[in-house]
């Protein structure tokens, strides 16, 4: 319990840093921020009103305090394009982005870990070089380009995938919202048509994301498997006559996965960043495409809300990874 509190405290500086940076970004708008927030067609009176509303005529520190209290109250500004508050827009779209990101992560882990094990058990073989080449290629592929290629091959040429237009087929009604995750919601509703339709829509974009983050996961699995496989307790296990399978999966892999967990932080940074690009390619109605639409329309409050929510999400994910690590590796608790 004490340890969890300590981890929470360690995440605090990052949280503060994130809020300071986003504050600076809101005030760094070129020219007059008030004019930007009021929109291009605003009258001078409207601009002046926005200025007092934003408190731009007050001292910087005071502005920062009111920025923080506004954030805490859930007042993240208003989207000019939709007229809705930014926070409700983001809330409505977040599940779509999260479902895509998490599905991508699950796909990536379930491919990368076996690949890493494969490479580690046969170092310097053709398999090893093949995995290395594949992962280097994966991390070199611009996600927006991979996405387009997959669309061309699997939608246009082969006709296996549905058209890249959103979360669910236009002819299938979406499941009633409980969690906002279509897969979970359709399971709750027992609607298997919707389940299948939403999985079909997810596979290509999630696969695009997964390909991009294969490299760090597979490489880390390989490196840590190599380390574990050459350690004493593996030699003992082998000498005791345990089957290679038991040694590999029960003994080696479980210990090797711990360092892989630490790379998840970087993996999430990649995932959340490339999520924006993938959402644009697949017309995915998440917070990324919302941010891009707002950017194009020079609507800045949603963009800043997007950056802030992504950063908060990332801080939270890192905290969860940290907690999971402490829970899985009792040695950390002992070191205190």
């Amino acid at each position, binding site marked *: 319990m004490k340890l969890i509190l300590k981890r929470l405290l360690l995440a605090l500086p990052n949280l503060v840093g994130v809020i*300071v940076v986003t504050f600076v970004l809101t005030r760094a708008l070129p020219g007059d921020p008030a004019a930007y927030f009021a929109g291009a067609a605003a009258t001078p009176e409207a601009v002046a009103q926005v200025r007092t509303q934003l408190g731009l005529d007050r001292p910087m520190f005071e502005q920062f305090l009111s920025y923080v209290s506004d954030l805490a109250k859930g007042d993240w500004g208003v989207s000019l394009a939709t007229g809705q508050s930014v926070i409700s827009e983001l809330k409505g779209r977040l599940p779509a982005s999260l479902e895509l990101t998490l599905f991508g992560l699950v796909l990536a882990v379930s491919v990368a870990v076996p690949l890493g094990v494969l490479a580690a058990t046969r170092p310097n073989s053709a398999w090893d070089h093949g995995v290395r080449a594949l992962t280097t290629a994966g991390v070199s592929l*611009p*996600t*927006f*380009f991979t996405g387009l290629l997959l669309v061309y091959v699997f939608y*246009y040429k082969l006709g296996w995938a549905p058209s890249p237009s959103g979360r669910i087929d236009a002819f299938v009604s979406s499941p009633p919202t409980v969690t906002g995750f279509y897969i979970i919601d359709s399971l709750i509703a027992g609607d298997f048509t919707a389940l299948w339709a939403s999985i079909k829509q997810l596979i290509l974009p999630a696969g695009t994301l997964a390909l991009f983050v294969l490299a760090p996961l597979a490489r880390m699995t390989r490196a840590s498997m190599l380390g574990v496989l050459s350690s004493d307790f593996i030699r003992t296990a082998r000498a005791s006559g345990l089957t290679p399978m038991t040694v590999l999966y029960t003994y080696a892999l479980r210990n090797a996965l711990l360092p892989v967990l630490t790379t998840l932080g970087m993996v999430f940074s990649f995932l959340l*960043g490339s999520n*924006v*690009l993938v959402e644009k390619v697949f017309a995915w109605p998440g917070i990324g495409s919302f941010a891009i639409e707002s950017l194009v329309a020079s609507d800045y409050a949603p963009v800043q809300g997007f950056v802030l929510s992504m950063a908060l999400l*990332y801080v939270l994910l890192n905290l969860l990874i940290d907690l999971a690590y402490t829970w899985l590796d009792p040695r950390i608790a002992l070191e205190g």
Partner: protein
Amino acid sequence: MDMKHFKYVLKENPVTGFAFVLFGLFVLLAIFGPLIAPFDPLDSNAGEPLTPPSAQNWFGTDSFGRDIFSRVIIATRLDFGIALSAVLISFIIGSSIGCAAGFWGGWLDRVSSRVADTIMAFPLFVLAMGIVAALGNTVGNVIYATAIINLPFYMRVARAEANVRRNAGFIEAARLAGNHDVRILAVHIFPNILPPMMVQVSLNMGWAILNAAGLSFIGLGVRPPEAEWGIMVAEGATYIISGEWWVALFPGAVLMLAVFCFNLMGDGLRDLIDPRRRT
């Protein structure tokens, strides 16, 4: 890093040699691109709009009838220019701050580590988006944003490398010989941390190109009709679902090749400098 070792590493991993050759080709394209390109990149009479690859237009033409082959070649200079400027900025600032922080420690170390941590607390591409959106939608700001998100990597490598050397024998000797700290940093520490920094530069170049292309793909930075790989892929995106694959494929493939080249070079350089770190 003598020649014998260099040859040995190349023999062990021939892919690295390939990456160096590819890099040379890209540099030539960036320098002599305008001389090589058969058409003007903005000329909309290079062929019929949306013609597939042919003898006249090797990579086909886009919706305006511009020659994609010429545009891909011309774009090399802009893409490499953006990435190189960004990496240079983060290399110079990051390694100076990192070196100083690792050497002296103290408040400078604490503040700079805090700054690096704060940058890393963001998903980096998202931070770059936010910076460009806030500073204004120009190529210059794409360069600054890319430089900022790469800064922590240089700061950390330089800090760690300077820190392990600050009490080394040769530093003590230099100090006893009457060199002041700044001189020791510049003449004795900096040259020694260059090799690991170069690995970082090479890996970062690929990343910087990807990042800049990603930003222009979503409409930040470079604007049409300028030829840039990311924008060209974005322009081709709408034609993918109607089967005109060449508009997006060629710029995307060249972009991928460039990033691949830098990543392979980075891996190769790391093998050259420190074979144990290979993963």
